[in-house]
């Protein structure tokens, strides 16, 4: 029987990690056994047919990504799980890492087999200490049972899997920045092409996927692509880990059908706004997504629909803005983050973000000038895709450009009144 919540169903209610024995009792590693009897190409086809799209934020089709590793590509080949999760407002991968580490390991073993990978790394942000301990433990359990290492379950296929703890920087989550970090360098991004499937880690073919993406792989292989598509209410298959933070009654995280509407997430699952607070807007999926407002509440949360509404689903963890929180202050906080985390490579990013942060700070402190809003809006155009080396600057543009659109009056009041009306 296939679960409707394949990622979270078997998690222990007491918050402890699901150990190997319990994971196996729930059918765990059955998908790996099945996968090893299929051909790698068959697995790639199944994942393509499932319509699984990357859960790291960009929504790239996972099966297609795997097919980019050329069949006769050289070895060693690498697979990297992106467990950096530094996008502000995002707390979904931590749940999977802490509570269901074997699901990630099984997903990586299957993804590794499908892409002919020799060595995998779990790139984990350094602050996730509990996750680190639990993954290390699960890795040892998986090796002991023959799910990892040379000749997995006697299949002739072998993969080593290592845990790498990051030293902390948002740019480590950008996939080529991550490869540099793994090589012991500064996490500046790399020029593309060549793309990682052709020349990635240590110059070898490399596949990079988000934790939640990889955790979806075992259930797809176990239950089939059609089942996976059927979990969703829309075009993008599967379930999604959705979350909400801010002044709502029940901030939290829920595994729900892909395409659950924003209103349902906000009202039913997050329990609506706290008493005395009214909803003003939200960032649907982390700091680097455009604000949505009241008129968008009936949008289904999936990659396709949120994009139509003018934003991105991103990581699917919503950050809610209420009427007692200053939108200018919030935008300043977000811009400060991006300015601080800029790697310094491209001028529009390091210089423009720093400048925008100073303008927003001045505005919040009552020093806003007429014309600031036009200049800020003009600036965000230089951060658009194509002007910079990586997607950090385009991500930074999203909350600012949309805040200027939806909360224009609030910005204007800061300038005309010479103070923040919320202070």
């Amino acid at each position: 029987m296939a679960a409707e919540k394949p990622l979270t169903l078997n998690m222990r209610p007491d918050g402890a990690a699901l150990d190997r024995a319990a994971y196996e009792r729930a059918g765990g590693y059955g998908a790996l056994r099945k996968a090893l009897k299929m051909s790698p190409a068959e697995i790639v086809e199944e994942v393509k047919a499932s319509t699984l799209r990357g859960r790291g934020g960009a929504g790239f089709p996972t099966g297609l990504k795997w097919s980019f590793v050329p069949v006769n590509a050289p070895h060693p080949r690498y697979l990297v799980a992106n467990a950096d999760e530094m996008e502000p407002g995002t707390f979904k991968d931590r749940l999977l890492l802490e509570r269901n580490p074997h699901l990630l390991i099984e997903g990586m073993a299957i993804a590794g087999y499908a892409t002919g990978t020799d060595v995998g790394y779990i790139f984990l942000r350094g602050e996730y200490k509990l996750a680190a301990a639990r993954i290390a433990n699960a890795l040892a359990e998986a090796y002991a049972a023959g799910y990892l290492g040379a000749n997995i379950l006697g299949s002739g296929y072998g993969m080593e899997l290592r845990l790498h703890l990051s030293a902390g920087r948002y740019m480590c989550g950008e996939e080529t920045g991550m490869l540099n970090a793994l090589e012991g360098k500064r996490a500046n991004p790399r020029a593309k092409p060549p793309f990682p499937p052709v020349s990635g880690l240590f110059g070898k073919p490399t596949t990079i996927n988000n934790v939640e993406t990889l955790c979806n792989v075992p259930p797809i292989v176990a239950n089939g692509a059609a089942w996976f598509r059927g979990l969703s209410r829309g075009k993008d298959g599967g379930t999604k880990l959705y979350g909400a933070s801010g002044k709502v009654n029940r901030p939290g995280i829920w595994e729900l059908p892909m395409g659950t509407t924003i209103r349902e997430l906000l009202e039913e699952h997050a329990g609506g706004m706290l008493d005395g607070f009214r909803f003003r807007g939200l960032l649907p999926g982390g700091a680097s997504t455009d604000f949505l407002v009241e008129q968008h509440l009936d949008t289904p949360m999936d990659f396709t629909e949120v994009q139509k509404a003018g934003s991105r689903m991103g990581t699917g963890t919503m950050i809610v803005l209420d009427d007692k929180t200053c939108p200018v202050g919030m935008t300043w906080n977000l811009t400060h983050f991006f300015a601080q985390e800029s790697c310094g490579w491209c001028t529009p990013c390091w210089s423009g973000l720093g400048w925008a942060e100073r303008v927003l700070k001045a505005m919040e402190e009552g020093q806003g000038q007429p014309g600031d809003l036009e200049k800020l809006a003009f600036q965000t155009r230089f951060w658009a895709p194509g002007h910079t080396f990586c997607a950090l600057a385009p991500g930074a543009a999203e909350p600012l450009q949309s805040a200027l659109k939806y909360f224009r009056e609030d910005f204007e009041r800061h300038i005309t009144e010479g103070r923040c009306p919320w202070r």
Partner: protein
Amino acid sequence: MLSPEERAEIEAEFPHYPNRKAVCIDAMKIVQKRRGWVPDEALADIGELLGMSIADLDGVATFYNLIFRRPVGRHVIYVCDSVSCWIMGSDRQCGHLSERLGIQLGETTPDGRFTLIPIVCLGACDHAPVMMIDDDTHFDLTPARIDRILERYP
């Protein structure tokens, strides 16, 4: 000089990567785990072990938030200053910490007990405001909770 334990722990990482240079971040973290920070002479020793220049190593060290090139207190307090915590009042919690400890962000108490630094989103936004002290994350902060938590770090 690297201690024998430091050297052994760094060398144990070698088989996990195809070249030694890739181990440099781990190496600095191994030193920091024991000494609290990464002093200049440790950079020189790591450089010798891995075949890297001090300048290269320092370039890497300064890129990352969690590698300290200056001494820190016995305990490091990382307060989340990202958006969800900010909405939930992290400024006030941070102000309370500053006042209690008598230091600003980036400083260490005169008795060497605490260093206070900001950190980006700790991935616990549903329990904002959040801070981390050493290896422990603390959720749903209020001034009273902060006071109780601090007592656990002598």
